[in-house]
């Protein structure tokens, strides 16, 4: 009874009439439609991320048609198949099939007499049998349209054997770059990336933290300091390729004696110009400096003022306060910010191309003054090639790069969690 009364009162207070009802319904309908639109946009973002990852995995694994240059059966000696032959016969095969110059090169690397049978066998497979990937299929086709793929392969490549290839495997990570997609690996690129990043950190971390300390703890409201602050914010928005050009003009060209190592008498006869890991590292350092400073400032700002006052109250100087109290408390935040900045630097490609990464390099970098290539550059160069097999190894290299970034970001998250727990307790 009472309930009914309230209801009638409630509806009575609302305007009546058909026009209102229609308007009311339409407004709510619009609300529902747009809700779906907003939600769909979010889902699109996630779908795209999934598509991106799927696309990479799709390229990194799959069936491949492999064709031998020379049929191993024709190499059999007196009815003994190739894989059962002893070392002497294998060496004979090499001598029959390879040029004198190539043989001499192998001999000088390691005399045949000292090589094991397996080693010689590998050489025969690599140089005489020469298996070549003639066509590759994506993971999706290999799994779900296998019969169609096999039929097409049997028709187009009757001599080839079809194998399931994983383009990323331990060998891929440990072998150097090669012009042959099957033998190519990312060892040189990984080492190049690590060297470059090491220099970036050594350069950018102290300077970035120093600038952050200055701006948060020392800087007064003076026009110079305001300019520095505005300038840092603007630098964070400059396209990375501009930093590459700055690096090219300053580190590579103007500081060539320093960046090529001639100043220290460390010249590598193959480089003798400034396009070295050193230049690349400094360029990336300049690039992430604004990020480290901005993140560092936030971390320092989060340190409670009571700590500083307590320290001053005990008679500590400004620097003692900063060094013993502010920095240790801000450190996890600073490190998290630095790791995020470094993971940005690891993925940077454009500035390093401008600075002058080598297009083809198979030797491990030996120090800061050697030529370099990095993982993203390797990915770029392989992606830019028209052959499908290079796309496959590019996908493999992308997985390596993403794994590296994932590890870095995970450590940043761990640091942040540990830090926030400590503040709460």
């Amino acid at each position: 009874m009472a309930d009914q009364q309230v209801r009638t009162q409630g509806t009575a207070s609302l305007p009546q009439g058909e026009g209102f009802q229609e308007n009311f319904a339409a407004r709510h309908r619009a609300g529902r439609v747009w809700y779906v639109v907003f939600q769909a946009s979010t889902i699109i973002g996630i779908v795209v991320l999934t598509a991106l990852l799927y696309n990479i995995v799709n390229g990194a694994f799959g069936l491949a048609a492999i064709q031998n240059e020379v049929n191993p059966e024709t190499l059999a000696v007196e009815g003994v198949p190739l894989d059962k032959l002893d070392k002497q016969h294998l060496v004979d095969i090499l001598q029959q099939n390879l040029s004198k110059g190539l043989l001499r090169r192998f001999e000088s690397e390691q005399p045949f007499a000292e090589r094991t049978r397996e080693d010689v066998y590998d050489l025969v497979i690599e140089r005489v049998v020469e298996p070549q990937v003639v066509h590759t299929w994506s993971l999706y086709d290999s799994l779900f349209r296998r019969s169609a793929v096999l039929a097409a392969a049997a028709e187009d490549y009757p001599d080839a054997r079809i194998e399931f290839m994983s383009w990323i495997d331990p060998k891929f990570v440990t072998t150097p770059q090669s012009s042959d997609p099957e033998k190519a690996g990312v060892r040189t690129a990984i080492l190049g990336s690590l060297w470059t990043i090491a220099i970036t950190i050594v350069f950018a971390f102290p300077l970035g933290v120093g600038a952050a300390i200055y701006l948060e703890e020392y800087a007064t409201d003076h026009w110079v300091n305001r300019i520095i602050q505005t300038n840092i914010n603007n630098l964070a928005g400059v396209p990375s390729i501009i930093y590459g050009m700055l690096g090219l003009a300053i580190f590579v060209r103007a500081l060539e004696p320093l960046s090529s190592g001639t100043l220290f008498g460390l010249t590598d006869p193959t480089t003798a110009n400034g396009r070295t890991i050193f230049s690349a590292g400094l360029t990336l350092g300049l690039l992430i400096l604004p990020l480290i400073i901005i993140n560092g400032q936030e971390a320092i700002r989060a340190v409670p003022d009571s700590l500083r006052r307590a320290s001053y109250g005990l008679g500590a100087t400004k620097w003692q306060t900063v060094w013993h109290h502010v920095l240790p408390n801000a450190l996890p935040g600073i490190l998290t910010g630095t790791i995020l900045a470094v993971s940005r630097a690891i993925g940077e490609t454009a500035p390093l191309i401008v600075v002058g990464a080598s297009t083809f390099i198979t030797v491990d970098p030996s120090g800061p003054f050697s030529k370099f290539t990095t993982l993203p550059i390797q990915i770029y160069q392989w992606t830019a090639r028209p052959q499908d097999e290079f796309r496959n190894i590019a996908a493999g290299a992308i997985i390596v790069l993403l794994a590296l970034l994932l590890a870095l970001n995970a450590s940043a998250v761990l640091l942040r969690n540990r830090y926030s727990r400590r503040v709460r307790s």
Partner: protein
Amino acid sequence: MQDEMTTVAKGSVAVATGNVVIDAAVDLRKRPRIREALIQGFLFLCGALSILTTVGIVFELGKESLSFFSQQLWEDTNKQLVVAADVEMTTFEIVEGGKALQGGDIIRINDEVMRIVVLDGGLVTVERGLQGTRVVSHSAETDIFVSNKVSLTEFFTGTKWNPQIGQFGIWPLVTATLMTSAFAMIIALPLGLSVAIYLSEYASDRARGILKPILEILAGIPTVVYGYFALTLMTPLLRKVLGAETVQIYNTASAGIVIGILILPLVSSMSEDALRAVPRSLREAAYGLGATKLETAVKVVVPAALSGITAAFIVATSRAIGETMIVAVAAGAGPNLTFNPFQSAETMTGHIVRISGGDLSYDSIDYNSIFAIGLMLFFVTLSLNVISQRIVRRFREVYE
């Protein structure tokens, strides 16, 4: 630390023993702290390095651009001397046809530079031995070159970019950049704003806690990976939907769409921050007046956060213009003045990467030209960033 402790101890001892006069050995004036000052100086230098970086960018890009605009390029006129010219002659007969010359042009025959004083059909009167070159005699049939400086007008209005034959009009590169950026904005702005509204107004805390980090992953993926994505998934998709004959393998549409995906998290997270900064009381007032959730979001919250959202859009535009690897991989090589998004065209950034990818020799016209493009890119993106900061500062609605 150590010696300060001892000073304090000595001071207190002095006060305790000499209870009438404070010991003169205790100097209570402010002492110069050299170490502190040195440290502060060093920290200031760290901060000032950022200014040095900006100055370095402007100076280096400016210097190389300047030499780009003042470099003398010799263009073949397809004209030759009709008869041999000896050291004394100032009027020659030259072949008609080829590139038209006019009075005042600087020409070069062999190594000698001359200025045309009067030009009368096939007869040309010149001033000889300019720019420190020696006056020598030239045999008949010698080719004549005309000096062709890159003028600012040509640079900003020319429609052909072809350094090999001395054409330096930046428009083909600019239109390509505009097209990729436009595509990126068409994708990223509506999607990014929708995502931001959803996350800030509709999503539960739990959904937000899951969705936001996932979207942030998109922002952390290196751009070269997006380039791979554009070339191996987006382009084949476009070709399948629109037909392989309309869509070229390298095209600006595919690159633009993928740039849009790249900057989507930037737009959404900056806009979301702006939306969440709008105080709850505004929303509650709107609900109290009977507004639906959509009306509250679109007519109250979004207008209140408009400055932040605009800033996000501008920053995203600047990012799209400066994006390099996606266009380098997927948009194609070779400048092409076209407004067809399904054809290949080279953007400013793509051109810089392609030119500097080879072994670039210093002070060549290619080397200087990329710095001129870079300087333009720097000013465009810098002014966009400055505008966005201004907007945030000027138009931010401050709520108590």
